[in-house]
C-alpha cells in the first residue's frame, strides 16, 4: 500500500495586538455579547478523560444498533445514491415531513405538513425564528432559568431578554401576565415567549395543564407568539402525558420546535419548526439564505429508519434506560447532597436542577469539583442576569449508573466541605435553600430571595 502524505497546510502568522484592534473595528455590535473567558476555560477542562462529566446534555447514542445503522446506509447507497448526494428542497423532503407528522402525532398533535420546515437541528429552528421576528431592542420573554443554548441566539439578534421565574409547575404564568400588562403600559410589544414546557432544560420541571391553557390564552389575547421547544416530550418516565401547547392552541399563536436529536441522534442534525403559513414563508426565506437546505443524506437516513418501523420501540428502550439513570441520580442526591441542598424531580427529559445555599457560587464550586474530577453546569449559564449563581444543572442521560453514583458522591463531598466551612466562619446553621413544603407546591429554590420576575 502506498502512503498518502498529509496535505500541506498553512500556519497563519500571529495576530498582533494591532491586528486585533483592526479586526475589532470591523466586528458587528452583536458580537460584543461574550461570556467570561476564565469560566469558558473552566468548562474546557471538563473534557479531560478522568473527569466524570454531569455537565453534558448528551443522549446515549451507544444504544443505537450499529447493524441497523449499517443496513440503512447501505440501502441508501444502493438504491438512491445520486439523490441522497444531491441538494434538496429548502423546506425539507415530503418524506421527512411525514416522519415528523408521525412523531408529533405520537404526542397527540395533528399537523399539516405544509406548516413544517426541516431544519439543521432544533437549534437552527430557534435561530431562524429569531431571524424572522427579532429586531435589535425587541423584547423576548423566556423562563428563568432557560435553555442555556438559547441565550446566545437571543443575544446575537440583540433582543432584550426578560426572564419569568418557574416553580415545580413551570413558568409562573401569573407573573407573565403582569409582565405583559406592564409592557403594554409602556407601549412595548414583546415578540414571543420562549418556553420548554415539558421536562425543561435546565430545570427539569414540567408546565401544568392549567398554566399551559393560560399561556396559550395570553398569547391570543396579546397577539404574540409562543415558541414551544419540545425536544424531550416523548422521554417521559412517570406521570400522565400533558398536551403540548401546539395542540392546545391549534397552531395559530404557537410556533413549535422539534428535533430528532433526543429520540434518534444529535449527530444527524435534524430538527424542525412548525409555524402558521405567513410566518413559515419568512422562515423558509431565512433558511434559504442560511444554508439552502438541511442535509439530504441524513433526511434519507431518517426516512429509511422510520420505514423500518422500530422508532417507537427505540424510544421506549431509551425511556427505560433514562428512567433508571434518573432514579439512580435522585437516590444518589438524597444520599450524598447535604440537607441544605434541594433539587427537582423531573418526570422526563435529561436534567436535574439542584439549588445550594445562597452563599455557594457554583462557578467557584466547579473549580473545586474539577479537582475531584467531576463536573456540572453552573446555573448562571441559564440566566441573563446574576441569578442562578447557587444552582447547577446535572445530566443523567449520557452517563452510566456507576458514574452517576460516583459523580454525585464527589459533588456532594465538595458541597459539604463548603457548608461546613461556612458554618465555621459564621457559627450559623446553614438555612435550607427553601422551606420544606410537604405538597411540593412552593416556589422552587431557584427563586433568589427578593428577586423579581423582571
Amino acid at each position: 500500500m502506498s502512503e498518502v502524505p498529509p496535505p500541506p497546510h498553512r500556519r497563519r502568522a500571529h495576530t498582533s495586538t494591532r491586528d486585533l484592534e483592526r479586526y475589532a473595528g470591523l466586528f458587528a455590535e452583536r458580537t460584543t455579547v461574550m461570556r467570561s473567558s476564565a469560566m469558558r476555560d473552566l468548562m474546557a477542562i471538563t473534557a479531560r478523560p478522568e473527569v466524570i462529566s454531569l455537565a453534558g446534555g448528551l443522549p446515549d447514542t451507544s444504544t443505537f444498533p450499529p447493524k441497523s445503522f449499517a443496513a440503512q446506509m447501505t440501502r441508501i447507497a444502493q438504491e438512491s445514491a445520486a439523490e441522497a448526494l444531491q441538494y434538496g428542497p429548502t423546506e425539507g423532503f415530503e418524506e421527512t415531513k411525514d416522519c415528523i407528522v408521525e412523531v408529533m402525532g405520537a404526542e397527540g398533535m395533528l399537523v399539516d405538513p405544509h406548516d413544517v420546515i426541516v431544519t439543521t437541528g432544533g437549534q437552527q429552528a430557534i435561530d431562524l425564528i429569531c431571524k424572522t421576528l427579532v429586531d435589535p431592542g425587541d423584547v423576548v420573554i423566556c423562563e428563568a432559568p432557560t435553555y442555556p443554548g438559547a441565550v446566545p441566539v437571543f443575544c446575537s439578534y440583540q433582543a432584550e431578554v426578560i426572564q419569568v421565574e418557574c416553580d415545580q409547575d413551570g413558568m409562573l404564568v401569573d407573573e407573565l401576565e403582569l409582565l405583559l400588562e406592564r409592557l403594554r403600559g409602556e407601549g412595548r410589544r414583546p415578540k414571543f415567549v420562549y418556553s420548554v414546557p415539558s421536562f425543561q432544560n435546565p430545570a427539569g420541571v414540567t408546565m401544568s395543564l392549567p398554566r399551559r391553557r393560560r399561556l396559550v390564552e395570553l398569547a391570543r389575547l396579546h397577539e404574540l407568539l409562543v415558541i414551544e421547544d419540545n425536544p424531550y416530550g416523548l422521554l417521559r418516565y412517570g406521570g400522565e402525558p400533558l398536551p403540548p401547547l401546539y395542540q392546545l392552541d391549534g397552531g395559530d399563536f404557537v410556533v413549535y420546535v422539534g428535533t430528532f436529536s433526543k429520540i434518534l441522534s444529535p449527530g444527524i442534525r435534524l430538527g424542525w419548526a412548525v409555524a402558521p403559513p405567513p410566518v413559515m414563508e419568512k422562515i423558509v426565506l431565512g433558511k434559504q439564505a442560511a444554508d439552502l437546505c438541511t442535509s439530504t443524506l441524513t433526511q434519507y437516513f431518517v426516512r429509511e429508519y422510520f420505514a423500518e418501523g422500530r422508532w417507537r420501540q427505540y424510544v421506549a428502550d431509551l425511556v427505560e434506560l433514562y428512567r433508571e439513570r434518573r432514579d439512580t441520580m435522585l437516590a444518589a442526591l438524597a444520599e450524598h447532597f447535604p440537607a441544605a441542598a434541594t433539587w427537582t424531580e423531573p418526570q422526563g427529559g435529561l436534567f436535574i436542577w439542584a439549588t445550594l445555599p445562597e452563599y455557594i457560587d457554583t462557578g467557584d464550586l466547579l473549580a473545586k469539583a474539577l479537582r475531584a474530577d467531576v463536573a456540572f453546569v453552573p446555573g448562571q449559564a441559564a440566566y441573563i442576569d446574576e441569578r442562578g449563581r447557587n444552582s447547577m444543572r446535572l445530566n443523567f442521560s449520557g452517563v452510566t449508573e456507576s458514574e452517576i453514583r460516583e459523580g454525585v458522591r464527589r459533588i456532594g463531598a465538595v458541597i459539604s466541605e463548603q457548608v461546613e466551612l461556612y458554618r465555621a466562619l459564621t457559627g450559623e446553621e446553614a438555612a435550607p435553600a427553601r422551606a420544606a413544603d410537604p405538597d411540593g407546591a412552593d416556589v422552587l429554590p431557584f427563586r433568589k430571595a427578593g428577586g423579581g420576575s423582571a
Partner: protein
Amino acid sequence: MKVAVLKGGRSLERGVSLRSGARVEDALERLGHRVVALDVGADLVKRLEAEAPDVAFVAMHGIGGEDGTAQELLEVLGIPFTGPGAAACARCMDKSQAKHAIREAGLPTPDWFAFSQTAFRELGAADALGRLEGALGFPLVVKPSRGGSSLGVKFAAAAGEVPQALVAAFSYDDRVVLERFVGGRELAVSVLGDEALPIVEAIPERGDSYDFEARYEIGRTRFVCPAELDEAQRAEVAEVALATYRALGCSGFARVDLILGADGPRVLEANAIPGLTDTSLLPQAAEAAGMSFERLVERILELALEPAVA
C-alpha cells in the same frame, strides 16, 4: 535547536496555556527551531527523556506549571528552561509568600492577612475575623493565595460579605489572602531579562473596577500601552517592578501587577509565567517596545540559555 514546549496540564488555566503554547510553537518554527509540543501529563518525564530537547519553553499557567512543579523536574533532568526557576515560581504563585518577600525587601504592597482552611476549621480563626477586618477596613479583597486569571477573587464591601467571599476563594486553594483594597490605576509591568518593558494600563470600560471577570472579557476592559504616565511616575513604577522581580528571585521574564494610587505604586502580585496569547499583556508590552512576537520568543530562549548568574 530542539525546543520542547510544555503546555496544558491539569491547571484551571489549561485553556489559556494551550493558546500560549500554540502561539509559541508557531513562533519557534518560524525561527527555524525543531519543536516538540508536550501537553503535560503523567508521561512528562518519560517524554522529556525520550526527546532530550536542548531547552524547554514552559508555557504553562497556574498550579502545576507556574508554581515550580514542572521547573523542579526540569532542574532534576538538567534541561534548561525559560522563565523563573522553581523557587521563584513557587514564591510568585503563592500570593501570601510573595507579599512577605516583597515587604521584607522594603517594597510597598497593600496590608494583608493570610489564612488556611485549617485555621477556620480547627483553630476558630473566625473569631479573629472582626479584628482583621478592623485592621484592613472595607472594602477588602479576598483572593485564593494560589490562583490566576482572577478566578475566585471577590470584593467584600461589608463584614457580612466576608464569609461568602471566603467560601468562594477556598474553592480554589486551601489558603486565602484578605487584602486591604487600594484604589488607583491598574498597571502591569512586564520584565524581560533585567529590563522593564513599556507599562500597560488596564482601564475598565464601564466603571467595572469591582468586577474582576470584566478584566478578561474583550470590550469590558481597555488596555493602553504605553500607559500615559509622566516620566517620574513611569520611572518609579518601573523601579518598583524591577525591585519586586529581583526580590522574588525571578529570571528570564515575569509580569508585575501594581496599583498606582495617591500614595504611589503598590505591588499586588507577580506572575512568573505571564500569558503569551494574542491578547496577553507581555506580548503587548514587547510590541510597544518594538519587538515582534518572534523576537520576544527568541529573547526568552536566549535568556534561558545564558549561563546562570550565581
